[in-house]
């Protein structure tokens, strides 16, 4: 092990995490969640064409590799005149991907809330929209924290794929350091360690969030 190189490389790699991986993850997850909620509502809307459309979207996203989705957007779209920088391309591809996976989680969570909750909400006079927003979604959120945390952690690691479309994130920084030095093993282990630390922190955050939401657990 080349300790000197580890010390030298860990700074730039961590910086790549802070300026690349982490904001990319946060932005994509936020947009992805909005897409997911919209898709989940479309799926349970009872409107045939709407739920069919959502189902088709989810099927395509889950049935194609993330890397290929990135390539289609970054390298493919310019052919039809849509030219995007690496960052917007990455956020679009990642959030569309997260949306597809998280949609099914949220749909299942909404369906897991007992019918009696909808009925009690109707009884106090709420419309379906109010019932959803004030009664069902808050409870569904609690149910979906563990599976959504998985999606979130996967997303952290999936951001490394965006190095191939030239986004300067953790892994691309590591590649740039590794190539001239020739110390691939050391540098890539440092990169892996930084991903692991990020995910450890996230898992801790998941525990705290679950405990906070547990105050009303049945």
């Amino acid at each position, binding site marked *: 092990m080349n300790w000197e190189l580890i010390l030298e490389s860990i700074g730039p790699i961590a910086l790549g995490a802070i300026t690349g991986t982490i904001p990319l993850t946060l932005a994509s997850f936020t947009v992805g969640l909005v897409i997911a909620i919209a898709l989940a509502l479309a799926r349970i809307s009872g409107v045939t064409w709407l739920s069919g459309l959502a189902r088709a979207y989810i099927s395509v996203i889950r049935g194609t590799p993330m890397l290929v989705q990135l390539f289609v957007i970054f390298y493919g779209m310019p052919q039809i005149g849509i030219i995007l920088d690496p960052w917007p391309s990455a956020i679009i591809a990642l959030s569309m991907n997260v949306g597809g996976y998280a949609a099914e989680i949220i749909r299942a969570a909404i369906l897991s809330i007992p019918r*009696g909750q909808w009925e009690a909400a109707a009884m*106090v*006079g*709420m419309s379906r929209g*109010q019932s959803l927003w*004030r009664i069902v979604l808050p*409870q569904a959120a609690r149910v979906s924290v563990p599976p959504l945390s998985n999606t979130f952690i996967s997303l952290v690691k999936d951001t490394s794929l965006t190095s191939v479309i030239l986004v300067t994130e953790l892994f691309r920084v590591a590649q740039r350091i590794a190539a001239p030095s020739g110390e691939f093993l050391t540098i890539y282990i440092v990169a892996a360690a930084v991903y692991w630390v990020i995910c450890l922190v996230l898992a801790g955050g998941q525990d705290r969030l679950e405990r906070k939401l547990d105050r*009303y657990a*049945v």
Partner: protein
Amino acid sequence: MPSEPLLSARGLHKSFGDNHVLRGVDLDIAPGTVHALIGPSGSGKTTVLRSLNGLESPEAGTLRIGELELDLAAPRTRRERSALHRASAMVFQQHHLFPHLTVLGNVTIGPIRVQGRGREEVTADALALLDRVGLREKADAYPSSLSGGQQQRVGIVRALALQPSMLLFDEPTSSLDPELVGEVLAVMTELASEGWTMAVVTHELGFAREVADEVSFFDEGVVVERGTPEQVFGDPREERTKRFLQRLQGPFGR
């Protein structure tokens, strides 16, 4: 019985698939009276009650509660739906409290978010109601930390806070441990004595006998017999009613 009923339902029909659960039910409830709906499971009494609050949509039937008149089979406008929910409030068998809200939140969410009343006024009213059922100090607790009887009393307060014209109870004690039934029935008895108009689906024949002003006996989707508790329990006219009451009494009597 006073002349003008507060609630009149006429000709209720409802099927679930092939199962014709309501086969032409009429129901009248006079203001300030308690009407007990009794009968074997599957006889349609709960479906009738749920139809009164719009939780079921019968294929045919009309409903009048106070000023509100509805063809139950027709699709409801927003205004009609909200008027229907204002007219009556329901206490569910399994309370269906909102687990993510505190006791106070459960009681106030309807008045504040739906009826648009002021938070301060609603909160004061809610605390007073909770006080009356002995749960003032549980206002900030979550439903999961309460006993079944306490949860059901909160369910009753949630219904009262909506300021409905009448109260609907769907087997409010059937899911409770036996030792918790009394506290819920006590609250209901008190409400009855205050003059609340109540429709109560119940298996508690003792409660029906003591508190109800009128009893309807349901079987196979129709009202077989109706009358005062003395008449229905003491001297039932119909064979089906007699058999039901005998079955409930069981081999050891009561």
